[in-house]
Structure formats: C-alpha cells, structure tokens
C-alpha cells in the first residue's frame, strides 16, 4: 500500500483542474469584450489594454511573489515569502491545498482568479484612468488587498477561514472584493466628462464577452472542487442554472418596468447570476440556484437602475452594482441555502436549520468590505498624490485609445 501513498496524484483531477485553469484564463479576455462593448468607441482599446495588461502583469507577479503571500505559511493575515519564485511549489501534491493534483496545478488555477479580480475593478474607473497609474494601482492592489484577503479566506491558518465562512469559488475574495474596490475607485476618481448614462458602442461585444464569461465560469466554479468528481458536476449544474434563471429574471424585470426586454439587460442578468452562485456553487442544490438567480437580478437591477442614479456616483460599467451587490447576496445566500446533503465538507445553512451560518457569512463579507474599502482608498490616495490617477481633461475628451496608446480601434474612412 505504500506505493499508493507515494504518488497520490489523480490523472482525472489533474486534467480537470488544468482544463479549468484554461477556462478561467479565458474569462479575462471575455471580460475585456464585456466591458469593451460598454464604453464609447474612443476608449475600447483602453479597456482591452487594461484587461489584457492585467492578464500579463498578474501572471508574472503571481509566480514571482504574490502566490507566496496569498497561500504561503505566515500570519493569519498574510503569507510569507517562502514560496517566492515558486520555490518548493512543484509537481508533487501538497496535502493542504491539492491532495490529488500537483501543487503547480493548484497554483496556476489560483493565478487565474488573481488575474480576473483586479480586472473586474476596471469597469468602475473605465474611460478616465491613466494607463501608468492603472499599472501601479494594480500592483499595489494585488499585493496589499488581494493577497491578504485571499490568505485570510482561503489559506490554511487564515483568519476568516477559521471562522467557518463558506466561500466555494470566490464570492468574497473575488466578487465582493472587486465590487467594493470598484465603488471606492469610482468615488475617488470622480465622474466621467460629458456622460451621465450608459453609452454602449457595441452590444454584440458585450454579449460575446458575457457568453465567454459564462463558459469560463464552469472552470471557475466546477473547477473549484479541485477534483473531477460529483461535487464538480453539482457545481457545474447549479452554476448554469443560476446564470440562466438570473438572465430570465432580468429580462422579465425590464419587460415589466420599461416595456421591452433588452439583450444588454439579459446578458447583465446572466453575469449577475454567475457572480451570486459563485460562493454557493459547492453547497447548494438547484432549488437554491434558482432562488439565488431570481433574487440576484432583482437586487442588482434595483441597484443599477434605481439606487445608482439617485446616489450619483459614476461606476461606469457597474463593477459594484453587479459584482459587489451580486457577490454580497451570494455570500448571504450561501448561508441560507447551503446543505450538507450537497457537500458533507461544507455546512448547513438557514433552511437546513443552521441560522448561525448566515451570521458567519455576514461577518466574513463585512470584514472583506471594510478592509478592502480602506486599503483601496489608501492606494488610490497614494497613486493620485505621486503620479496622478486621472488623465488630463483634454485626453479624456479625445479618448484613452489615442492618448494613452496612440492607436484607434475603428476607422470610418479607409
């Protein structure tokens, strides 16, 4: 029997986690088109460049030192630098995180999450941040917000993980975190010039990007089982169900309140559903998924069409309205609908008789909100005082494509 213990790597699990990593990687280009379609034509390359720039930048930082800060041994709040340059992170399994897959597979799967999280924030400050400031902001945010929150929630010995909060695939670490950072950056940087409403230039891009997100999300959620097993299949099914239900609900809300269902609204609903099911995907059944999908569209629709105009902040592409609100609802919903019948390693929620789980979920989400808001504000302040966050007025008017990158996306005369 000793030979089996020497090599616990499962071919099936490894194949699924590597494939899932590739699926999650595709979400960031998907997000680029989802966001890119929502901005004015003069800024589409600016948004694509920020998303693809994040993909490249975070990929490098992650292997150099951020993976170690996020998952390495350290305090309950932050890992150390033992695993810098992936020192000791090898082809063998690592029991704490990846008992049946190579440690490297777990590391690269997590890299994709660390990439898409700062990319999500781009939606909040789109069309007005300097590219240089964006790069500095992303490095600081990844290091001082993402790494500690990831460590607290997911790492063995992490502060929030120890409380028993349930977050299957990153509702707190990814979506609440990015959503709150989005709200803070939108408030800090101020409104765009000459715009007070959505100004989509290419709805088909939004749909293409949204569809790629939906596709990639199977890796995000079902891949978070870190195994090719029944739980992965369950997460896959509830992910698809919640996305579909939320898309239908958003379309229905538009039909009721503004006369016609729109493509933009429907794909927004789908993404909101994906956000909300993320923390719950390993703990709920399809009944839970349907309710999560219905209610996330109700909450997010209300947030972006009623509350945002009243409060008057300019979260350009609703990073907070969809990811912040949807992520928060997902965290709470996990505490309501979770069941040990789905995942014996999880916990029962409110409907299974464990009301305390809702309180734990609130606490974990609250800690993330407070830490992320404070730290993000400080980072914005530092970047603004040193190199300046925002482009000059005339640059903003001409567009980020021409002023930040010296190129343009479209011609009207050949």
């Amino acid at each position: 029997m000793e030979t089996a213990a020497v090599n616990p790597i499962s071919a099936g699990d490894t194949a699924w986690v590597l494939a899932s990593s590739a699926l999650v990687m595709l979400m960031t280009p998907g997000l680029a088109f989802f966001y890119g379609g929502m901005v004015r034509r003069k800024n589409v390359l600016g948004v694509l460049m920020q998303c693809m720039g994040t993909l490249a930048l975070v990929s490098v930082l992650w292997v150099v030192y951020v993976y170690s800060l996020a998952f390495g041994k350290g305090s309950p709040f932050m890992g150390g630098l033992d695993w810098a340059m992936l020192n000791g992170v090898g082809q063998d399994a690592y029991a704490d995180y990846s008992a049946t897959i190579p440690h490297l597979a777990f590391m690269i799967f997590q890299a994709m999450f660390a990439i898409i999280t700062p990319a999500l924030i781009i939606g909040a400050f789109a069309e007005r941040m300097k590219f240089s400031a964006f790069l500095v902001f992303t490095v600081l945010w990844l290091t001082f917000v993402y790494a500690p929150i990831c460590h607290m929630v997911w790492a063995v010995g992490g502060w929030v993980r120890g409380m028993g909060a349930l977050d299957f695939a990153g509702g707190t670490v990814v979506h609440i975190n990015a959503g709150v950072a989005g709200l803070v950056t939108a408030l800090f940087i101020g409104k765009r010039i000459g715009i007070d409403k959505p100004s989509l230039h290419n709805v088909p891009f939004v749909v293409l990007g949204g569809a790629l997100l939906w596709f990639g999300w199977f890796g995000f959620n079902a891949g978070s089982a870190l195994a090719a097993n029944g739980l992965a299949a369950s997460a896959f099914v509830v992910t698809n169900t919640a996305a579909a239900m939320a898309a239908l609900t958003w379309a229905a809300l538009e039909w009721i309140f503004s006369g016609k269902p729109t493509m933009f609204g429907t794909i927004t609903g789908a993404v909101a559903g994906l956000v909300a099911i993320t923390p719950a995907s390993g703990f709920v059944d399809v009944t839970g998924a349907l309710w999560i999908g219905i209610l996330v569209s109700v909450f997010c629709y209300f947030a972006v069409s009623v509350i945002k105009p009243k409060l008057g902040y300019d979260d350009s592409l609703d990073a907070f309205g969809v990811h912040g609100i949807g992520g928060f609802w997902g965290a709470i919903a996990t505490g309501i609908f979770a069941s040990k019948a789905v995942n014996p390693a999880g916990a029962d929620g409110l409907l299974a008789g464990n009301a305390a789980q809702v309180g734990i979920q609130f606490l974990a989400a609250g800690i993330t909100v407070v830490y992320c808001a404070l730290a993000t504000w400080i980072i914005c302040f530092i970047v603004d005082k040193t190199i300046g966050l925002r482009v000059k007025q005339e640059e903003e008017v001409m567009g980020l494509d021409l002023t930040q990158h010296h190129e343009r996306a479209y011609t009207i005369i050949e």
Partner: protein
Amino acid sequence: MKLVIAIIQPYRLEEVKKALYAADVNLITVSEVLGHGRQVGVDEFYRGVKETGNLLRKIRLEIAVNDNFVEPTINAVIKGARTGKIGDGKIFVVDLPRCVRIRTGEEGSKAIG
C-alpha cells in the same frame, strides 16, 4: 432660408442638442466626420510605425431654418459646444434656395419647420 452647418466635438453633442431644443429648434441631421483644423490631427503607432497627422473624429450638424431662427440656432450651438479650447469647431451658414417636404410636396418656409 438658411442651412446652418456646424462641426463640433463629439462629446459636446448632447449639450448642443439640449441647447437647440431649448431654443425650439427640433429638426437636425447629425453625421460623423473626420477632419482637423488648428488641432493638426493626431499621431498613431502601429507596431512601432508612426503615422502622423491622422484626422480627428468630429460631429457635423445640419440644421435648415427660416431666417428668424438663424441667430437662435447659432447661439444654441455655441452655448452647447464651446469649451474655450482648440478643437471646439466651426459654424457655417449658407443660403438655402429651396426646400421640399417629400411626404406632402410642400415647399419653402412651410416645409422647413
């Protein structure tokens, strides 16, 4: 009858429309054009190759009005489009000898409004 042609910054279009509606000028045609005046265009780079003097995106408004609406129209365009910076654009006013409404065959001042 006059034809007022205005070249403005794209992002000022909403403000110009608001000012025109406020002046009771409700009929406009808008097109997207490329061009430059004293801004002298913009440089672009494609894989390191520089292209200079590329044209900037502008909005062209065409507004056909009766004579008593010429000044209000011009004032409204200025109100909406002026930022005081180079690139705000220009207004051209030209005589309009004839105007026909296709639906009814009406001509002249009647057809214009």
